């Protein structure tokens, strides 16, 4: 529409520029943290991430070794070494903190008492004098370090900070929480789309209504329910049922340790909770999709004697694949990214935290350590980003179908 009327070029440029600006606004924050996750704590502290690609200049100070230095054949003494043991380039140097950039590399400087000193660009220095040297003095210099990146932050957060454990915990939460509601919803959606029974319209209205119920409402009653379930199922842990509960991994001990009951904070609990919270969207999405399947296909197989169950399994389910995929992506992203449900229904012990909870923890305890936070954040968002870029098509389709029109 902006190309209408032959006045194309200036407007088109404006469009290109504004889109570019928008895209920059939307990507720079993420890019910044991403680059930061590959920098050392020292680099992060002294310069912004946007300088990471260029070499950074830093004022440093070093202490010369003690005298007297090595004596040469002509009787003079020399102290030598390097101010840059880790590489880099000296840009300028000086002998007092007031004038740290007084001299250029390679310049021979009179240090007094006939002592002369040279600092080369590569950091090596030599100090020569007619008598035994005192040594121990300080040299101020500005060093340029070439851009360098490290993977150390990632190995640190994964192996030392427990991010790997949290990674596995997140998968443990997200995958069953995605599969279970699909199974349950597919059958329900089929019934709502293609079977006739009294109360169908009402049930549909209820599902649409539940679509927007804030899950905050569910937290306290379900938490209380889980706690009661734990108390109700308490049996002595020596008993057969007690041992079975213990073995299944679903149990937790009472405070005095002699009784065992179904744990109030277990993966099973959070899977079912996520199932309940995800069902309205799943049913709504799948039902709308299934309704669109041509009536002829279903009628003709009914005539051929197929039962509802066969129709569902052999026709509806395969044809509904795109809708199933859309919902699966939604639910996976939502359960992986969820913080609230995980905080309420999973234990707060360090080894059972999911990624989001772990990240929130680190924000509190390691607030200033950006190398840790950045790497942790990227470990946690790597999976959703992969899913996003790999399956964007289904995600868009699901969004379009899922919003109530």
């Amino acid at each position: 529409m902006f190309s209408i009327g032959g006045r194309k070029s200036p407007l088109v440029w404006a469009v290109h520029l504004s889109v570019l600006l928008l895209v920059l606004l939307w990507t720079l924050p993420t890019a910044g943290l991403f680059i930061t996750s590959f920098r050392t704590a020292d680099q992060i502290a002294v310069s912004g991430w946007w300088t990471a690609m260029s070499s950074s200049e830093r004022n440093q100070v070093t202490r010369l070794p003690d005298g007297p230095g090595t004596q040469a054949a002509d009787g003079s003494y020399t102290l030598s070494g390097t101010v840059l043991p880790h590489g880099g380039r000296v840009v300028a140097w000086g002998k007092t903190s007031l004038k740290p950039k007084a001299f250029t590399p390679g310049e021979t400087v009179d240090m007094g008492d006939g002592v002369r000193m040279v600092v080369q660009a590569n950091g090596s220095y030599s100090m020569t004098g007619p008598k035994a040297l005192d040594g121990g003095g300080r040299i101020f210099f500005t060093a340029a370090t070439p851009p360098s990146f490290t993977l150390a932050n990632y190995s640190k957060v994964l192996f030392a900070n427990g991010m790997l454990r949290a990674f596995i915990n997140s998968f443990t939460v997200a995958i069953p929480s995605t599969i279970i509601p699909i199974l349950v919803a597919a059958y329900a959606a089929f019934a709502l789309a293609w079977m006739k029974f009294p109360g169908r319209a009402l049930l549909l209205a209820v599902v649409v209504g539940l679509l927007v119920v804030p899950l905050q409402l569910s937290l306290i009653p379900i938490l209380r329910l889980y706690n009661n379930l734990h108390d109700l199922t308490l049996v002595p842990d020596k008993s057969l049922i007690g041992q079975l509960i213990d073995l299944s991994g679903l149990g937790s001990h009472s405070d005095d340790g002699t009784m065992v009951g179904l744990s109030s904070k277990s993966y099973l609990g959070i899977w079912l909770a996520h199932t309940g919270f995800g069902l309205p969207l799943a049913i709504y999405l799948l039902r709308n999709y299934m309704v669109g399947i041509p009536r002829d296909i279903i009628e003709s197989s009914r005539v051929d004697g197929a039962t509802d169950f066969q129709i569902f399994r052999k026709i509806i389910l395969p044809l509904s694949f795109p809708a199933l995929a859309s919902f699966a992506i939604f639910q996976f992203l939502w359960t992986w990214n969820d913080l609230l449900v995980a905080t309420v229904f999973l234990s707060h012990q360090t080894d059972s935290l999911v990624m989001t909870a772990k990240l929130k923890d680190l924000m509190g305890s390691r607030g200033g350590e950006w190398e840790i936070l950045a790497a942790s954040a990227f470990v946690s968002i790597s999976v959703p980003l992969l899913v996003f870029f790999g399956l964007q098509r289904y995600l868009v389709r699901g969004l379009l179908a899922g919003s109530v029109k």
Partner: protein
Amino acid sequence: MIQQIYTGLATIAVGVGLALLYFYGSNWLLDRLLPQGGGDARATRNIRLAGAIRPWLFLGPAIFALGLYLVYPVIATIQLSFFDAGGTSYVGLANYDWFVHDANIRAALLNNFLWLLVVPAASTFLGLVTAALTDRIAWGNIAKSLVFMPMAISFVGATVIWKFVYDYRGADQTQIGLLNAIITGLGGQPEAWIAWIPWNNFALMVILIWIQTGFAMVILSAALRGIPEETIEAAVLDGANGLQIFFRIMVPQIWSTIAVVWTTITITVLKVFDIVYAMTNGQWDTDVLANQMYFWMFQGTPDFGRSATVAIVIMILVIPIMVWNIRNARREMEGH
């Protein structure tokens, strides 16, 4: 850890197996109990009876889960809001009285109101502009993809990303946060954005706008493409310019979609918790209702009554949208 992976896989297998067993088993049992072959009167009656029962077999697990995890909690939360901290003795309207008079709640309500005013409007507007602009250029799809990307990032992840943008150092130090670096680069003074009352609320809102714009863009882009070409051509013939066509011809035709996007983001805003919880936990006057609800549930001295009351208020705010959604959905379904 390895054991956890095994347990996880085993539970998935058992869970899926049980679900399939239920659906197969119950249908098989139904057909067994009500034999439908033979063609006599008994078979006809059985067919009708089985036809009446089968939908409920399909719906059973879903109704159970919806009932347990969504319907029952709504009722239980309403009930809890009339009870004391432990949920044991009836206290009448005491919790609601507290809600109306509490200073923290008032601050949270005010902030929520600000969020409701700003975030849906800004996200929808930016989404609409992005959709319109990207539809016009060759690399529009890549641009769309990048604007849409934050949608996949968790609220906590996004909060870390933006906390780094807002990072603040003293005026004599090198700024490593992008925003303060730009401001000092232009000759201004760095600002501790997160603690800058009351503007810090907007710093938090930016995060949600950043996430939701992609959603608005995707939906509105599809709507824009669905506009009949003739209406635009007619406007061109009448001599309308680009902006006139956009605001007078295209936008009015997608009003209903804009409303959908707006309300969907409104609901997200009402439930917003992670961003505030992770960034400030309500400090520096940034509290919102959802965070207050969590606060009374777990932090400080837990009070289920007050927590439930806050949840009920969030629910009441959602109800108008819920009713509107149901009416729209019913109208749409009558077409089928």
